[in-house]
């Protein structure tokens, strides 16, 4: 497999964490424009732990996930009672604040005689744990996909379980759920924490793939993209957001056709697709139909 293909597939894997993160919140009935912030939190935290304090990547990843979960939980506490656009705007505001804080964040440490660490808008370079430990690009891609597969397995398990039904119920009709005795706020906060952890995991893997991150990476565009992937791919299944990512990054960027026109083509396709399928490709109805056909 050539380097370009590995690169594209790796990108798909990394962004998929973000798309899944947005998807989880959408299922719970909330639209977030801010998942990129938790992606960034994971990236910065994980990068700092491995490159400044010599933590091994797996441990740093766990810590990053915990931090991401906590961060999204804290943001969610005052905002999850907000509906629709209000919640979306709150997440947008929080994410932009995070990005600005990254720009103001200077924290470096001497490691082997060199200053290492986040340097505001100059970025954070030298996140080299993966290369220092001799992990090949293909292997790293494998690790990313292994993590993604675990996440997907978790999603598919939850979807079949009572928790999954509760989650979707809360998302579709919170009043009905509440009247059935569900603690809607707790469910939403739980979903938020999980979404934060997912995004952060993607972030720490991303940071170690790129070895260099800067605040600009975690801007609103990234967030709206991940939301869009989930909405285009469809909310019927966790494979929906992945489909969205694959369509954009895979089919268009990967295929190298339409070079330079990619966004124009993709944008047009998405708008047309939504006319035909307003609820995304793999929406609930299509998933039901597919299940019936193949069972």
């Amino acid at each position: 497999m050539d380097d370009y293909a590995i690169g594209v597939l790796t990108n798909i894997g990394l962004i998929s964490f973000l798309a899944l993160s947005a998807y989880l919140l959408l299922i719970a009935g909330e639209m977030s424009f801010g998942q990129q912030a938790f992606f960034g939190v994971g990236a910065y935290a994980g990068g700092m732990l491995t490159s400044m304090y010599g933590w091994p990547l797996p441990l740093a990843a766990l810590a990053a996930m915990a931090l991401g979960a906590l961060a999204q939980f804290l943001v969610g506490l005052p905002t999850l009672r907000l509906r629709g656009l209000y919640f979306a705007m709150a997440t947008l505001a929080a994410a932009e604040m995070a990005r600005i804080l990254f720009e103001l964040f200077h924290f470096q440490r001497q490691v082997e005689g060199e200053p290492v660490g986040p340097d505001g808008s100059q970025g954070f370079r030298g996140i080299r744990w993966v290369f220092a430990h001799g992990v090949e690009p293909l292997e790293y891609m494998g690790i990313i996909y292994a993590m993604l597969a675990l996440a997907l397995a978790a999603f598919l398990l939850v979807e079949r379980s009572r928790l999954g039904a509760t989650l979707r119920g809360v998302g579709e009709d919170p009043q009905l759920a509440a009247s059935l005795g569900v603690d809607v706020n707790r469910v939403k906060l739980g979903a938020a924490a999980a979404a934060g952890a997912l995004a952060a995991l993607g972030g720490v893997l991303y940071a170690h793939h790129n070895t260099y991150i800067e605040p600009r990476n975690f801007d609103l565009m990234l967030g709206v993209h991940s939301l869009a992937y989930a909405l285009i791919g469809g909310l019927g299944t966790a494979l929906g957001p992945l489909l969205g990512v694959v369509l954009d990054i895979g089919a268009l960027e990967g295929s190298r056709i339409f070079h330079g026109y990619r966004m124009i083509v993709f944008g047009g396709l998405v708008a047309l697709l939504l006319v035909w399928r307003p609820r995304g490709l793999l929406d609930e109805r299509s998933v039901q139909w597919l299940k019936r056909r193949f069972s």
Partner: protein
Amino acid sequence: MTDLAQNTLDGLFLGSSYALLALGFTLIFGVLRRVNLSFGPAIMFGCYAATWVNLNFGVGLMALALITVAGAVLAGAYVERLCFAPHRNGSPIAAMVASFALWMQFEELATIALPRHIYDFPPLHGGTPLEFGGLMLRVESLVMLLAAIVMCAVLWGILYRTRFGVALRAVIDQPQAAQLAGIDVPRVFVLTFALASAIGGLAGFLIAASHEQVTPMLGMWSTLKGLLAMMLGGLGSLPGAVLGGLALGLLEAHSQWFLGPQYRDLLAYLLLFVLLAARVPWMTTRSAS
């Protein structure tokens, strides 16, 4: 004291352009009940069209203003047809995602047509700033404020003195009752979109001319400012949009002075977040899901 006054003045000038952006955004949101993520990008399309014409033909300022507005209206019509008309009775989310998709199109189109990161835009007024009682007034800021005031007056006239204005306000107030009163609601949507795009286009022209440059970031920037100002002023309220825009301008001018440009944006977002989290009543009166 003069600093305070100067910042307040600058804030009002800045806020007047934000107010126009917010008005355009709110018109679409109030009437169609949908968020248009291509609002800023359509404005950028207009500005870029004017920039292109200026580069190749060198026309007068008024002509450029007209081109910007026309470009914004044209781009807006494209967005309306592709993103909002098909989902009129359907999902607001689908419309919003479609408008995001078109935003991507506009951005790429802009960078293809005019590949450099920054382009010059002719100034509103090349002369020296005026001085007035120890305060500095840039003439372009004054022109911007005046243009914004005139635009608001025109909008007010449309809303309260024309038949279309009655229809528009009726649709904002109670869309189903508007249908029953015999108002052609789809037509109101199209015309409102055109009006909002025109106002946005004017705002875009004023901003570009006052900064004397255009960049591809203008699209997202305009949408963000419009969205922020609309939320600050109370979702879906037109007078609120004006107040929100002015408030945002004042906030930015003062915080930039005291804290610097990065903290300026931080403060605006912090204010919005706090207001939302506290669920301040004026911000949450209209249904927005």
